[in-house]
């Protein structure tokens, strides 16, 4: 009975690992963003899907890019910092200020994503979930509260339509 209930319950979050990664995300974020503690953080990722046709074989490739996403409700700013699933480092931050962006909305189809157009020429699609188990592709962090707070911020303060 115990075994079956465990099987049906599905995978469980390793909270210690998740907390450690949350701290590392904060360290990385604060390292590159001024006044980083004024931002709340969530893990997100981008998906770059491209089709290929090499004659004999054709199909599609998906590239996943890990992101540390910070948001400040007072200034209406989202900061995106590229990183890697093992959190060994990060790139330069990109700032998306509500007053400066072209448009922002939440996409539901084909995938659930937060879309931000900084200008007319390009956009970023941020995917975020409360927990993703695959550590080779995503940062291992459980974030249901952060996801709820970010979604609320995006939908009530940041989106433009």
């Amino acid at each position, binding site marked *: 009975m115990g075994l079956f209930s465990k099987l049906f319950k599905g995978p469980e979050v390793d909270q210690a690992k998740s907390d450690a990664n949350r701290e*590392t995300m904060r*360290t*990385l974020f604060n*390292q*590159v963003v001024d006044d980083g503690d004024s931002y709340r953080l969530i893990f997100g990722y981008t998906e770059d899907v491209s089709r290929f046709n*090499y*004659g*004999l*074989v054709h199909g599609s490739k998906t590239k996943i890019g890990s992101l540390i996403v910070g948001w400040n409700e007072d200034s209406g700013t989202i900061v995106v910092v*590229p990183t890697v699933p093992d*959190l*060994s*480092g*990060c*790139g*330069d931050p990109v700032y998306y200020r509500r007053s400066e962006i072209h448009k922002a909305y939440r996409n539901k189809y084909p995938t659930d994503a937060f879309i931000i157009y900084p200008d007319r020429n390009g956009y970023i699609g941020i995917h975020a979930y409360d927990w993703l188990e695959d550590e080779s592709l995503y940062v291992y962090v459980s974030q249901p509260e952060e996801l709820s707070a970010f979604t609320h911020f995006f939908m009530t303060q940041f989106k433009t339509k």
Partner: protein
Amino acid sequence: MLWGEIGAVLLVLATLFIAGHLWFHIVEGVLAGLKRLVFSRQQPPAWHPLPPDGDDAPKKEP
């Protein structure tokens, strides 16, 4: 005889599968090489490694 035909079909499928994979990786390798050649002059994006922990950080001599 039937088993021989099934085996032959499986062999053909396996050969096609392996050839497809080989072809995919060859083309990907060539494309990656071309990209490296074309974009070699561009500076790589800035990268900030995770600072070492307090315990692991190299200690300064007094």
